[in-house]
């Protein structure tokens, strides 16, 4: 007898805590008791990410999704669903909840993700153009070449409301229109694949998984603005993405989807790859264009904008990878269909690289307007190790933090800006109670000091000044007026720096200071790091009354600075201690403490 039905029981940590093991046993027993062995298999799975509603049970092949299932429900699931094919209504995830914010009709009823940009990632073989074509690939280009005028393409983008996914959120249709309307015969299409935020890898994954979507979108842009050449600027440290792009370009040329007379339409367009050396500032569009032209990657003041004078001083449309990946979908389904996803002011989806202290780290794509709570708890499965959520960092070195009290704020360009953060390119780093906000600000400031190109004084000197102040505070030498100095320098940089890097470099420190001023004050006034991260402010000690002399801490200590005889209280020799905290983790008797 062949297996017909599979009962999947979530075995993630959170579901195990809500007795999914007992549920699993109960289901196995019921299957046996009701004589269904051989027809059904009960399977324990990995985490399904919907932990707040656990334990989760999913029935295959009909994809029924049950939530909050108790061991006592096992009998009914087997008797009704498995044997009679009637789903147990009361256990289904309720469909009637308010989705007005997300405005999604097509969203599968329990899944929070909607994959438009990542539509082909993890589905097709990125090195086979036929698989891309099989899934509507190059159909949008065909439509643009045969049925649409450039003005209609711009109009469709306008209806879609698509905004630049590089972070700033500038309306894409305007960029395209300005470039299209700019005088001059020779024009360029550029793709910004210089992804550089720490913890962000959306663009890399998109190119690796679906390189043709970028080529198709760039050809569409070329047709629309009147360009016949495109350049993809990608950092050399993404070798697999580059390899897949090279393969894709060669295949598209072979099929005549790049090159002369594409699809017999008379339109010529070709794409070349330029490798960047990995400077963060080259993600800024004017610096990026300078780098392509063989100059040092430094920004120049705008205007003129690239739409008027860009690559080789010719009108240039420059968009980020994710922006391009949206284009074929918009032109295939229409701008209006696209605008139905997300919020009215920020339509569509956003890809995030969800990392940090989260259980299910991953590459996620969600409709704009989703709340941070849904991302962290329903998709991410919550905070690792049962720790308390502290903040989420978005926008990398240009962004800021969002705290627990704003977990229900809808994620879109406007709301994030109101909170003092930015959408950024899509890095989302989750932090828990063990993360020190001053140290986080120091980390990003250090990054900005390294990456500042040095052209303008506000950025070159400002980032260094902020870093000095932050290092001083982390070392316990902070003074009361330092916070005012940070504000003063930071505000000046926001106003006076030449490009986005310098203007936004103070954001991480200003944002953490705004939400966690007490933590800064603890460092300055009490020489104390509440999270126990800033090493110069932390001392580890062993309580002689609790220590039984098991020697475990001494064996774990990487610098051998714990002394003591077996079965007698041990002692940490402070002068050599590197404050790694291994002794605290090792001690089973609560004798080690951190101050």
């Amino acid at each position, binding site marked *: 007898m062949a297996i017909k039905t599979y009962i999947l029981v979530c075995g993630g940590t959170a579901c195990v805590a809500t007795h999914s093991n007992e549920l699993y046993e109960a289901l196995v027993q019921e299957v046996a008791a009701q004589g269904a062995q051989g027809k059904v298999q009960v399977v324990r799975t990995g985490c399904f990410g919907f932990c707040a509603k656990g334990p989760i049970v999913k029935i295959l092949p009909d994809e029924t999704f049950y939530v909050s299932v108790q061991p006592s429900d096992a009998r009914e699931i087997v008797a009704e669903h498995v044997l009679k094919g009637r789903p147990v209504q009361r256990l289904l995830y309720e469909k009637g909840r308010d989705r007005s914010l997300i405005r999604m009709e097509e969203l599968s009823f329990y899944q929070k993700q909607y994959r438009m940009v990542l539509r082909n990632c993890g589905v097709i073989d990125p090195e086979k153009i036929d698989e891309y074509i099989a899934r*509507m690939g190059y159909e949008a280009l065909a439509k643009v070449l045969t049925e649409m005028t450039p003005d209609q393409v711009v109009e469709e983008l306008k209806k879609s409301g698509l905004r630049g996914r590089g972070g700033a959120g500038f309306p894409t249709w305007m960029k395209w229109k300005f470039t299209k309307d700019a005088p001059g015969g020779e024009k360029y299409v550029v793709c910004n694949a210089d992804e550089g935020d720490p913890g962000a890898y959306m663009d890399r994954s998109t190119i690796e998984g679906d390189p043709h979507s970028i080529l198709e979108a760039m050809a569409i842009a070329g047709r629309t603005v009147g360009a016949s050449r495109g350049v993809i600027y990608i950092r050399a440290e993404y070798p697999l993405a580059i390899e897949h792009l090279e393969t894709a370009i060669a295949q598209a040329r072979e099929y005549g989807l790049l090159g002369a007379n594409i699809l017999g339409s008379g339109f010529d367009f070709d794409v070349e790859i330029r490798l960047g050396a990995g400077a963060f500032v080259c993600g800024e569009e004017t610096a990026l264009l300078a780098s392509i032209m063989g100059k040092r990657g430094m920004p120049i003041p705008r205007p003129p904008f690239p739409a008027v004078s860009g690559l080789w001083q010719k009108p240039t449309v420059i968009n980020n990878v994710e922006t391009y990946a949206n284009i074929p979908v918009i032109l295939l389904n229409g701008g209006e269909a696209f605008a139905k996803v997300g919020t009215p002011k920020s339509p569509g989806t956003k890809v995030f690289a969800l990392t940090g202290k989260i259980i299910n780290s991953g590459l996620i794509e969600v409709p704009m307007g989703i709340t941070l709570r849904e991302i962290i708890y329903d998709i991410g499965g919550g905070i690792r190790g049962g720790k308390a959520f502290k903040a989420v960092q978005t926008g990398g070195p240009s962004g800021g933090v969002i705290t627990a009290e704003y977990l229900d704020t809808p994620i879109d360009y406007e709301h994030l800006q109101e909170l003092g953060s930015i959408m950024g390119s899509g890095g989302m780093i989750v932090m828990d109670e063990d993360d020190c906000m001053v140290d986080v600000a120091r980390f990003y400031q250090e990054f900005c000091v390294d990456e500042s190109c040095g052209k303008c004084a506000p950025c070159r000197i400002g980032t260094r000044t902020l870093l000095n102040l932050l290092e001083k505070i982390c070392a316990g030498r902070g003074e009361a007026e330092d916070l005012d100095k940070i504000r003063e320098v930071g505000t000046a940089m926001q106003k006076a720096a030449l490009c986005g890097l310098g203007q936004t470099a103070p954001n991480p420190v200003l944002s953490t200071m705004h939400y966690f001023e007490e933590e800064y004050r603890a460092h300055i006034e009490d020489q104390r790091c509440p999270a126990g991260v800033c090493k110069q402010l932390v001392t580890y000690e062993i309580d002689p009354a609790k220590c039984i002399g098991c020697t475990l801490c001494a064996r774990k200590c990487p610098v051998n600075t714990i002394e003591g005889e077996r079965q007698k209280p041990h002692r940490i020799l402070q002068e050599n201690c590197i404050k790694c905290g291994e002794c605290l983790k090792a001690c089973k008797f609560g004798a080690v403490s951190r101050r």
Partner: protein
Amino acid sequence: MAKLALEDLRKLREARAAEFHVRKADVLEVQIIVGMGTCGIAAGAIDLLTVFAEELVKAGVRRVRIRHTGCMGLCHSEPTVEVLAPGMPAVIYGNVDAETARKIVNQHIVRKLLVDDHIFDRPAVDIIHK
């Protein structure tokens, strides 16, 4: 391959689209689709290809295709592998090490029983072929 005209592109699409349409219903052959983004490779996806190939030969499985794909988004559980087999639901396995790969061949593909503790949910519906 000659340059495509518009009708060639659409013919090619029609010819290849069926492959993706049948995915969830009835495939005729076994497909093992390995996530081969940077993330998957870093977690050991390349070694898995050899393990699968060897184990399939050992188990005497015929009509099977090992395919590559990009990142499925389940970074917490790389390497990830999707398995399609005739008469079985499409399933994504995560944290697939050599031992799990062997189980996938001998248990999932040969005996048609899902493998415990490694199944993950597909993160979203497919917007192309709903």
